[in-house]
């Protein structure tokens, strides 16, 4: 020791003298020799070691050999290594990210993905559970009872819910300095209330001492739990600090393990501060996250499958899908209706729009067209309200022009109408009267400019018909006769006869006028052979006159009737006959 000190102090002097004066090498060697003599091989080792320390490369080699062991040893002793290294490591990491971000990203990739997925899963799970819980609470009959209970006991509703649904809740956690009972840190769950935790902490310690002393247990035996009806205080005693958790509800077995772990970690982390604690609690702020880990709550319903929430979700999704389906279905129907209406001749769709429960169509309808409602009848409306507002219009489509013409002109079957451009071609046979109508009305029909009736044959069918009718009437009247009783000109039961004649004669008058003629009905009476010639002649005359009077009475116009001289043509009858003449 002494020698090396001497060496150290001498050396600089020697070196300076060596540089100044080469002749002085003599005494130096002598000194060297003396050293070698005195220390022998040891001197060699020493100077070798010294050389190693001074030579950067060799020194590094030596340190390299032990550096990991040294680090491991130090890490076992205390946490100073991580404290010292963490700024360096942090700087190194941020430097690495700055230089080449993808390298760190690649390295982290295998852990990041799962971690992110898991945290998302957890968040979703939690959200679902909370949602379910709220739903359950707000829906169930149970919640009504709880409200009643809250009202009855004067507690807040949330407190009652918590009590009833709680398996357990760690309300507060104390970190207590074991020796003095002073409170090092304290955490409290959001719902819980705490009286002066510093006092509680001290008192908890005093109570432990009290129990230990009162029941004479050995000093190593520590109080594990204090239990009240629904409240438990769990203790974990470490060498320097006690962790005490106040649990409401059934305290779970795993809590004591958790408290042990937490307390051990606190001892590891804050060992120095615990050992030298003098009443300053600021150093224990770092224990808060650990203590907060113990603030656990378990609700009764958490394990349940969230039926209600799932059901609600399904309902919402179902409703959404149904709505979408309806929407597209409606649209489909609307377009189908539109297509049908557009395809229908004589209908013009001006526009359509959405109404709250369906669609409204504005339509122009030709009087000849089908009703729009009938057009869309075949389309299933599926509850979509389809409102069709129509306004009349005239279509100039050839079909409609033709149809209109037919409606206006009412042609007989013998007439054929055809449309060529705007010319109405009329073919076939028609009465002059109809032809006259055609010329008058035809040009007023929308869509028709002129009429071509060059191929129309005029046939006066009406006059023919009248003549025929007239002939029938004449035959009918002339077939009538009325019989008197023998020698009498009295009309007995003549009413039916007279009326029949009255009807026929009026008809005759009308029909004859149509044909431009004037009819006359001659009444001729007759007598049988029984009387004298003169009597018979008179009787026939009387009979004819009686009938004439009676007919006039029945309303037959006087101008129609004439009574000619009795003719002797019919001798064997007591009757009246008629003869019709047309002038």
């Amino acid at each position, binding site marked *: 020791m002494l020698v090396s000190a001497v060496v150290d102090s001498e050396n600089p002097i020697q070196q300076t003298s060596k540089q100044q004066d080469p002749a002085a090498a003599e005494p130096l060697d002598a000194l060297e020799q003396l050293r070698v003599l005195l220390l022998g091989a040891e001197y060699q080792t020493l100077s070798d070691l010294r050389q190693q320390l001074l030579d950067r490369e060799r020194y590094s080699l030596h340190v390299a050999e032990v550096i990991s062991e040294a680090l491991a040893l130090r890490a076992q002793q205390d946490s100073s290594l991580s404290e010292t290294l963490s700024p360096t490591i942090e700087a190194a990491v941020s430097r690495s990210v700055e230089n080449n971000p993808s390298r760190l990203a690649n390295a982290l990739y295998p852990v990041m993905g799962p971690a992110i997925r898991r945290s998302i899963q957890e968040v979703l799970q939690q959200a679902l559970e909370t949602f379910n819980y709220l739903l359950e609470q707000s829906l169930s009959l149970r919640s009504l009872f709880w409200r009643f209970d809250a009202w009855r006991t004067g507690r807040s509703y949330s407190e009652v819910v918590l009590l009833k649904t709680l398996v357990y809740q760690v309300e507060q956690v104390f970190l207590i*300095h*074991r*020796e*003095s*009972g*002073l*409170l090092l840190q304290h955490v409290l769950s959001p719902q819980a209330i705490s*009286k*002066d935790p*510093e*006092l509680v902490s*001290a*008192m908890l310690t*005093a*109570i432990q*001492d*009290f129990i*230990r*002393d009162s029941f004479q247990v050995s000093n190593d035996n520590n109080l594990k739990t204090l239990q009240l009806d629904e409240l438990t205080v769990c203790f974990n005693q470490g060498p320097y600090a006690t962790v005490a958790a106040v649990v409401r509800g059934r305290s779970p077995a795993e809590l004591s393990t958790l408290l042990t772990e937490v307390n051990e970690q606190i001892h590891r982390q804050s060992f120095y501060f615990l050992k030298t604690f*003098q*009443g*300053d*609690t*600021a150093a224990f702020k770092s224990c808060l996250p650990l203590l907060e880990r113990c603030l656990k709550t378990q609700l009764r319903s958490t394990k349940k499958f969230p039926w209600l929430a799932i059901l609600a979700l399904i309902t919402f999704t179902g409703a959404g899908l149904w709505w979408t389906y309806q929407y597209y279905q409606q649209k489909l129907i609307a377009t189908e209706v539109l297509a049908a209406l557009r395809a229908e001749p004589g209908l013009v769709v001006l526009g359509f729009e959405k109404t709250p429960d369906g669609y409204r169509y504005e339509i122009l309808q030709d009087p000849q067209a089908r009703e729009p409602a009938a057009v869309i009848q075949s389309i299933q409306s599926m509850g979509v309200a389809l409102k069709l507002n129509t306004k009349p219009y005239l279509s100039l489509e050839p079909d409609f022009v033709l149809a209109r013409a037919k409606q206006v002109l009412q042609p007989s079957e013998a007439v054929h109408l055809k449309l060529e451009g705007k010319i109405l071609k009329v073919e076939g046979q028609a009465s002059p009267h109809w032809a006259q109508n055609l010329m008058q009305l035809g040009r007023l029909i929308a869509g028709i400019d002129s009429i071509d009736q060059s191929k129309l044959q005029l046939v006066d069918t009406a006059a023919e018909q009248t003549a025929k009718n007239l002939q029938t009437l004449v035959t009918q009247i002339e077939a009538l006769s009325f019989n008197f009783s023998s020698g009498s000109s009295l009309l007995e039961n003549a009413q039916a006869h007279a009326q029949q004649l009255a009807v026929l004669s009026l008809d005759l008058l009308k029909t004859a006028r149509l044909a431009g003629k004037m009819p006359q009905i001659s009444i001729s009476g007759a007598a049988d052979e029984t009387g004298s010639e003169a009597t018979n002649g008179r009787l026939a005359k009387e009979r004819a006159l009686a009938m004439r009077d009676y007919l006039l009475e029945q309303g037959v116009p006087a101008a129609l009737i004439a009574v000619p001289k009795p003719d002797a043509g019919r001798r064997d009858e007591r009757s009246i006959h008629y003869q019709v003449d047309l002038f």
Partner: protein
Amino acid sequence: MLQKKICLLGAFSVGKTSLIQRYVNKLFSEKYLTTVGVKIDKKPIIVGSTSLNLMVWDIAGEDDFTNIRSAHLRGLSGYIVVIDGTRQNSFNVALALHERIKTELGEVAAVFALNKCDLKEHWVINHEQIRTLAQLGYPIIETSAKLDQGVEEMFMGLARQLVPENSEA
């Protein structure tokens, strides 16, 4: 925020409980004393620029000072020994207690309180005894829990010793 555990010690009925009651905000009722044997109160106090929480332990006990549980004395930062000026015995108990704590805990902060100073005409403690006390090197404060005299000073006298000197303004 500094926290310190302190303790009031002394013979039976010297006025420990009465002194604490004068001083602190209470959380626990007095019945703790008889049931658990200990009652703890908190007194926030400011010394210079340091705020301090005194956790004041009141220990119930017979006149026999050996009855005091060591457990209660652990972690103590300071104590107040209360003497009843009207009772000779309380002086002896006080000295013995002081002696015991010194051996058990080593040197800690302490204050001697001469209580019941409102009854000074009945005091049996003489000047000689007080001088002996003074030689121990701790503050001696005359107090009366009844008239609320010297109580604040008594606690303050202890608190001052508990705060590191450099932080005392």
